[in-house]
C-alpha cells in the first residue's frame, strides 16, 4: 500500500470542516448550533445551500481520503519530538488563555484572541521547525494587540523585532535600522499621504 499522507490529511481536513459546518447548520438529526431553516427546493431557506455545499464537501473529502490510500507515496515532512510537544503545548495554552479571559471578562476588542494567539505561537516557535510560522504570525498578533493602545510606531517596531527572529541572518543593528526605516516610510505613506485613521503614538486614540 502506497499511502499519500498529504491527501489523507487533506481529505480528513475537508471532512472535519464539513462535519462542523453541518452540525452548526442543523442538518443532522435536528441538532445544531444555529439551526438554519432548510426550506423547500422551491423556497430555499438559509440552511439549504449550506446543506448542499457541505455534503458535497464531505463527499469530496471522503473520495480524496479513500483515494489517498493507494495514491502515494507522498509523505509529510517528518516531525521531531519537540515539534509535537510545542504544538500541543502551544495550542493548549492558547485555548486556556482564551477561555479564561473570556470567562473573566477581559474580552474587549478581541484582546483575548490576540493574546492567546501570541502566546501560543511564541511557544510553538521554541521548536526550530515551527519558528518561521510562529514568529511571523506571532509578529502579526502583537501588532494587533499593540496597535490601538500603543499606536502605530511602537507596533511596527514590535512587529519587526518579533518577525526578525524567524530569519537567523538578522543582526540587532540591521533590525533597528529596518524598524526605523519602516516607521518613517509608513508614517509618510499611511499618515501623511493617505491619512488613514489609526493612532500613531500611545494615548492618541
Amino acid at each position, binding site marked *: 500500500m502506497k499511502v499519500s499522507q498529504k491527501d489523507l490529511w*487533506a481529505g480528513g481536513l475537508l471532512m472535519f470542516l464539513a462535519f462542523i459546518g453541518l452540525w452548526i447548520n442543523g442538518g443532522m438529526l435536528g441538532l445544531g448550533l444555529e439551526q438554519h431553516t432548510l426550506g423547500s427546493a422551491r423556497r430555499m431557506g438559509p440552511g439549504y*445551500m449550506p446543506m448542499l455545499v457541505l455534503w458535497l464537501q464531505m463527499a469530496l473529502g471522503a473520495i480524496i481520503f479513500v483515494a489517498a490510500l493507494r495514491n502515494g507515496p507522498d509523505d509529510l515532512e517528518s516531525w521531531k519530538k519537540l515539534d509535537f510537544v510545542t504544538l500541543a503545548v502551544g495550542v493548549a495554552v492558547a485555548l486556556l488563555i482564551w477561555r479564561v479571559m473570556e470567562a473573566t471578562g477581559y474580552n474587549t476588542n478581541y484582546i483575548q484572541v490576540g493574546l492567546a494567539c501570541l502566546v501560543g505561537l511564541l511557544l510553538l516557535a521554541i521548536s526550530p521547525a515551527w519558528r518561521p510560522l510562529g514568529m511571523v504570525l506571532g509578529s502579526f498578533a502583537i501588532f494587533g494587540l499593540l496597535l490601538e493602545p500603543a499606536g502605530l510606531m511602537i507596533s511596527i517596531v514590535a512587529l519587526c523585532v518579533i518577525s526578525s527572529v*524567524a530569519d537567523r541572518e538578522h543582526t540587532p543593528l540591521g533590525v533597528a535600522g529596518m524598524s526605523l526605516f519602516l516607521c518613517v516610510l509608513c508614517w509618510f505613506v499611511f499618515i501623511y499621504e493617505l491619512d488613514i485613521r489609526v493612532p500613531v503614538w500611545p494615548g492618541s486614540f
Partner: protein
Amino acid sequence: MELLLSNLAHGFGVALTLNNVLFALLGALIGTAIGVLPGIGPVATISLLLPITFGQPATTAIIMLAGIYYGAQYGGSTTSILLNLPGEVSSVVTTLEGYKMARNGRAGAALTIAAVGSFIAGSFSTLLVAASGPALTQVALSFGPADYFSLMLLGLVISAVLAQGSVLKSIAMVVLGVTLGLVGTDVQTGQQRFTFGVPELSDGLGFVSIAMGIFGIGEIILNLERPEARSVLSGKVGSLMLTRAEAKRCVAPVIRGTLLGSVLGILPGGGASLAAFGSYMLESKVSSHRHEFGTGAIEGVAGPESANNAAAQTSFIPLLTLGIPANAVMALMVGALIIQGIQPGPRMVEAQPDLFWGLICSMWVGNLMLLVINLPLIGMWVKLLQVPYKYLYPAILVFCAIGVYSLNNSVFDVYQTLFFGILGYIFSKLKMEAAPLLIGFVLGPMMEEHLRRAMLLSRGDITVFVERPISATLLGIAFIALAAMLLPGLRSGKDKALAE
C-alpha cells in the same frame, strides 16, 4: 466600427486624465517591482494595496490594480532572463530560453523582444477586449438566473480543472471556498449564518483577509522555511538591439503567442501562466528553429512573453462582461469593485462607461509606458533584486498589517488574517491549491442567489437547468471538461504543461 471608435475615444479621454495616467504608471511600476522580486506575487500585492485605493474613484482604483497585474508579467521576465529566477509563475518558461540567451551574451536582445512582444500582444488583446466586450454583454443580458448559475458552475469547474495538481483536490478547494462564502448574513432572510455571534462576521469573512493571509503571509512563511541562495548578476546585459535576423525570427512566434494567449486568457482558471506554457510547447513543435530550443532560441522568449501578456489582458473579458472572475487576480478585482459599490456584470458597460472604456484604454497606455520605462530602467530593477529577503519580508508584513486594519479600522481583521495565514500554511503543506478557493469564495454567494432565484421561478423544478438551452449548453461543457480531465492521458499532458 464607428461606435467602437467613439467608445475608444471616450475611453482615452478618461484614461489620459492626469490622475489616471499617474495611477496607471504607479500601478505599472509597482507591478514591475513585484514581478522582479520573487516571493511576492500580484495576488498578494493587489490585496495589500486594496485599502489604499478606497480613497480613489472606482475607475482610478481599477486602473491602478490592473497596472499591477500586467506590470508583473513584464517584471517577471526580467529576472527570468538575467538571473534564471522567475519572479512570477508565468515567467517560468522564459527562463528556459531567456537565460540561455543571456549566457550567450544576448540578454539585451531577449529583454527587448520580451518587452516588444508583450507590447504587441497587449495592444492586440486590448483591441480584442474593446471589440468583444459590448457584444458579449448583449449576450449576457439575455441570461436568466438558471443560465447564470450554470455559467458560474462552468467557471468553477474549469478553474479547478486547469489548476495545478490534482483535479479532485482543486474541486474540493472550490467547494471549500463556496463554504467559506456562506459565512455572514443570509441576503434573503437576514439570518446570521456561521457567525458565532461575532458582529464583525455579519458581512462575511473578509475577502482581503483571506487573500492576504493565504497568498501573502502563508507565502512568507514558506519562503523563510526554505531559504534559497540568490545568485548575484554576473555578465553584461549587452546590446538591447535585435539583429535583423533575430527580428525576423520573432514575427511568427509573437503572432502565434498573441493569438494563443488571447484565447487561453478568456478561459476561467487559465490566465497568464497557462498561456506561456502553451505557447512554449507550440513553438517547440512548429518553429523552423526548433532544433535550437534548449540552447537559447529567441522564439522561446518571444512566444511565451507575448502569450502571457495577451492572456493577462483578455482575462478581463469575463470579468467586465459577465462579472465572473477568470482567476485569483480577477477575483480580487471583483472584490475591489464591490467595495467601491459597483456590481460587476453585464450592466457595467452601460452603467459605468467611464470605468469600462477607461480601463481598456488605460491598459494600452500602461503597456506603452511599460515599454518605455522598462528597458531603460533595467539596471534599477536588477538593483532591487539585491535587497535581501530578510529586510523585505518584515516590510511586507507591516504593510499587510496596516492594510488589513485600515479596511474596517478593526483589529478583528488582523486576527482573521492571522487565522488564514495558518490555514494557507496548512494548505500548501497538504498540496491543496489555494487559487480555486478564492474563486469559489467570490462566486459562491452569487451562485446561491441565482440558484434560489432560479428554483423559485421554476417552482422547485430542478429540470430548469437542462431545459433552458443556454444553461444546458454551459452545463454540458462543464461536464465534458470534468470528464476529460479524469481521463488519465489528458491529465498527464496537463501536468506536464503546468509543471514548474
